[in-house]
């Protein structure tokens, strides 16, 4: 009997170890996956956008750095990009199209917001990327990689999608380091996973 109990305990420990390593590998591979821990990694502050248009877009009523939970939306899409990343360069038009697609839908434009964070990019480099691709949504500089390190040094481009609660807490329901297939397909996945209903 004692032997069986010990075996059960060993099996439980084994399963726990397996789960830990599988989850760890999944997270650090930077290719896919998220877990409850991810929301904690997104617990950082961003500077208030310089333009009133972007402040208004994010629904910010503060003059201080803000957390992601303060954005007025039900869903926030975060693109981790780099001006230097060839995939991000190729994806820029598609991400612009995603932004325009969301903005074109009255049922979505106030509920789904999109921002970009330039990993290791100075303010100059972020501005250059913005101007090069005529990007309309807010972009932020992470020049010293501090945010990039906090979120697990994901490969770029990486997309996080957060579901926001009224109490400013949020959960992560999408986290992938890969190009988006099409803006339409990405939006469909987002709507399905977030539970937002949109009239056809």
């Amino acid at each position: 009997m004692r032997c069986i109990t010990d075996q059960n305990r060993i099996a439980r420990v084994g399963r726990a170890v397996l789960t830990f390593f599988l989850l760890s590998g999944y997270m650090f591979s930077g290719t896919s996956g998220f877990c409850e821990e991810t929301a904690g990694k997104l617990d950082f502050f961003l500077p208030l956008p310089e333009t009133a248009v972007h402040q208004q877009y994010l629904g910010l009523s503060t003059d201080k750095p803000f957390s992601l939970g303060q954005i007025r939306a039900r869903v926030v899409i975060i693109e981790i990009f780099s001006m230097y990343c060839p995939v991000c360069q190729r994806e820029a038009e598609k991400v612009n199209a995603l932004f325009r697609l969301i903005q074109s839908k009255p049922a979505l434009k106030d509920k789904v917001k999109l921002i970009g964070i330039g990993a290791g990019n100075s303010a100059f480099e972020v501005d250059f990327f913005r101007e090069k691709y005529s990007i309309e949504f807010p972009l932020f500089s992470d020049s010293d990689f501090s945010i990039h390190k906090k979120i697990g040094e994901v490969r770029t481009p990486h997309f996080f999608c957060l579901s926001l609660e009224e109490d400013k807490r949020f959960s992560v329901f999408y986290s992938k380091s890969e190009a988006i297939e099409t803006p339409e397909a990405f939006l469909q996945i987002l709507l399905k996973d977030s539970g937002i209903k949109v009239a056809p």
Partner: protein
Amino acid sequence: MRSVPISLIGISLIFFSIAGIGFCGSGAYGNKIFDPGPLKPVDSVLKIKTGDKAPDFTLTSITGKEVRLSRYADRKNVMLSFIPSAWTPVCSDQWPGYNLAEEMFRQYDTTLVGISTDPLPTLFAWTREMGGLWFDVVSDFWPHGAVSETYGVLRSNGTAERAIILIDKKGIIRFIHVGDINLRPDLGTLVREMKKLNP
């Protein structure tokens, strides 16, 4: 009783241990990037200074063309971008950024020459993976690192520093940046320096 197969634990351990290898900021290269980890920030002693005449050189580019520095005299400012090694994390994202900024280089009448001590075939394959570059990429492989050594940016392991040398149309060195090899120089700084040559 159900038990956890040892092989599964082994597989997950192996996966976990290799997950960080090959990390590159950009996902453009899949798992083809070799990550040497943090390196000694600077491992050479400069042999040039601003105001010096830039040492001339001729190196072969990945297109087979001979690139001679003095050929640009009276025609273009030249920015030399020495990088340590192909297929490594920081380098693999540096030149694609300059590729995007082509119009800025043109605006300030400056051409760019990328230099590495890697052999030509390596540089050819690596830059192909980037999708091609508008500027010349030349190899300082043989005599190994000779040009890098002349400028004083050859590291003790035979690679070059991550260095930027800006040369004006008279062939005079106007700006030198030998920064931490683990970091990219800010594009904003390079643009400001190019702008100074074209007031």
